[in-house]
């Protein structure tokens, strides 16, 4: 049985080896060109449709707002009005007369501060609620009610408590973004398979080791879902909060532009707010992907 089979292999192997040098040069080039072509095609498939849509929408906007007496400026006018702001985001004339970079960075700093606090407190509370039945029974109803309070409703209260705009804005970020972090972390902790707990028990991990080596990695996909929702909410909240507290920040920049009837500047600011929000979301998503690689599948 074995012999004929090996013979066949030898026979086929020789001509293939002999033929190899002849074809070697030709097939090598097409694949490379092909991969480039495929990459270009894949990029095109993803990039062209949104570009077409954006171009069409801009065209419609231009046509609709071009007529005299229209309430909103057309894109061409927006660009003309805000050219200085676009090309010089770093100017600083003192007070709140600063480039958009400074406004955005002031907002981002508030978000970074408030969001970091809520990430730490949210994960800690989530672990508590996920781990202890009594903590869940006691705290969960409270969370469910508190999380429905709109971000801005907290602002007057926090202004009363802190008597200053800066900590109040940070508190609003904190209180807005903490709920999804708590709730998702708790779900993640509750869903840790009993098997992993058994392994930890047999190995005799102490609570701290269990937290670091089992709990956090096992719940990481859930935690990052919460963190991602949280960053989105905190960016939503900061713009609204800054409109009310004033000072440097993209939210107040928008409000200030409205008060001075600079509609073009509002539109430009909205564009930046959208882009920054998108980048923040991608950032947390990417971080989550990096941290939880390997955890997702079994």
């Amino acid at each position: 049985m074995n012999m004929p089979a090996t013979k066949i292999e030898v026979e086929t192997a020789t001509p293939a080896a002999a033929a190899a040098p002849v074809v070697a040069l030709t097939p090598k080039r097409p694949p490379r060109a092909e991969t480039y072509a495929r990459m270009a095609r894949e990029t095109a498939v993803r990039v062209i449709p949104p570009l077409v849509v954006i171009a069409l929408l801009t065209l419609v906007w231009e046509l609709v707002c071009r007529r005299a007496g229209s309430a909103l400026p057309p894109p061409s006018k927006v660009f003309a009005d805000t050219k200085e702001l676009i090309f010089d985001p770093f100017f600083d004339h003192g007070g709140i007369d600063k480039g958009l970079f400074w406004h955005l960075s002031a907002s981002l700093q508030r978000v970074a501060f408030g969001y970091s606090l809520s990430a730490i407190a949210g994960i800690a509370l989530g672990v508590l609620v996920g781990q202890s039945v009594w903590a869940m029974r006691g705290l969960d109803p409270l969370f469910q009610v508190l999380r429905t309070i709109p971000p801005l409703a907290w602002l007057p209260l926090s202004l009363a408590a802190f008597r200053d705009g800066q900590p109040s804005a940070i508190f609003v970020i904190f209180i807005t973004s903490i709920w999804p972090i708590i709730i998702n972390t708790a779900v993640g902790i509750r869903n840790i398979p009993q098997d992993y707990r058994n392994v930890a028990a047999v190995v005799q991990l102490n609570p701290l080791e269990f937290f670091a080596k089992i709990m956090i990695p096992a719940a990481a996909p859930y935690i990052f879902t919460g963190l991602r929702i949280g960053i989105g909410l905190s960016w939503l909240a900061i713009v609204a909060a800054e409109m009310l507290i004033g000072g440097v920040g993209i939210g107040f920049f928008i409000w200030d532009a409205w008060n001075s009837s600079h509609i073009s500047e509002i539109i430009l600011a909205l564009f930046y707010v959208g882009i920054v929000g998108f980048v923040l979301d991608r950032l947390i998503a990417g971080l989550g992907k990096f941290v939880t690689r390997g955890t997702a599948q079994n």
Partner: protein
Amino acid sequence: MSAYLKLDHIDKVFTRGAATTEVLKDINLTIEKGEYVSIIGHSGCGKSTLLNIIAGLTGATTGGVLLENREVNSPGPDRAVVFQNHSLLPWLTVYENVRLGVDKVFARTKSRAERDAWVMHNLNLVQMAHARDKRPSEISGGMKQRVGIARALAMEPKVLLLDEPFGALDALTRAHLQDSVMALHQKLGNTILMITHDVDEAVLLSDRIVMMTNGPSARIGEVLEVPLARPRKRLELATNTTYLKCRQRVLEFLYERHRFVEAA
């Protein structure tokens, strides 16, 4: 006679609200050092509950477990478990999964380098050293179970508890892994307690087979000695009369005297 592992009048009652179910009733068993004992029974007879009690993962309602004459009632590395579904931590590599237990058990007694060598030694025992940097999702079911065995062995348990270790594997992989476990038992002389529902597996591997009656209130129905010399060879045993007799005996117990009653 002082036994190595002694199960002393173990009862287990599950209580849910007002309803109580007696799962295990009056389980008595002694296991000698180096013995390979299998517990066999139909599904739902409480064999896994019994293993969990020995492992300390579940408490017995009454009675207790004595290991070297000391009562054990919480989990520990002296009774390492190989879980049915391998239970490797998916975010750790093969090496790290074994290392987790080793770092804990030998934190004081072995240096860093010694622990590293010990992990590799155990991976070598199960022929998995080549996959040390792979994650569980990148290796096959049989390989995962090998790593599970390495993790348990690396803790140098006094008793190795196997919870249907080959249940989730295909027949060929299972046979291969059974041979590996037999070879390990031969080489290291571990005391092993295995839960199984496979008659051939029980006869092939065990020195004694503990047959459990159907639940609720499962008891030990019969204990069968398997007087086959080691090392045992799967192919030679296929026609061995002692092997066939033992097999017959277990089959009779399971399918005649304690037939599994559907939806009972």
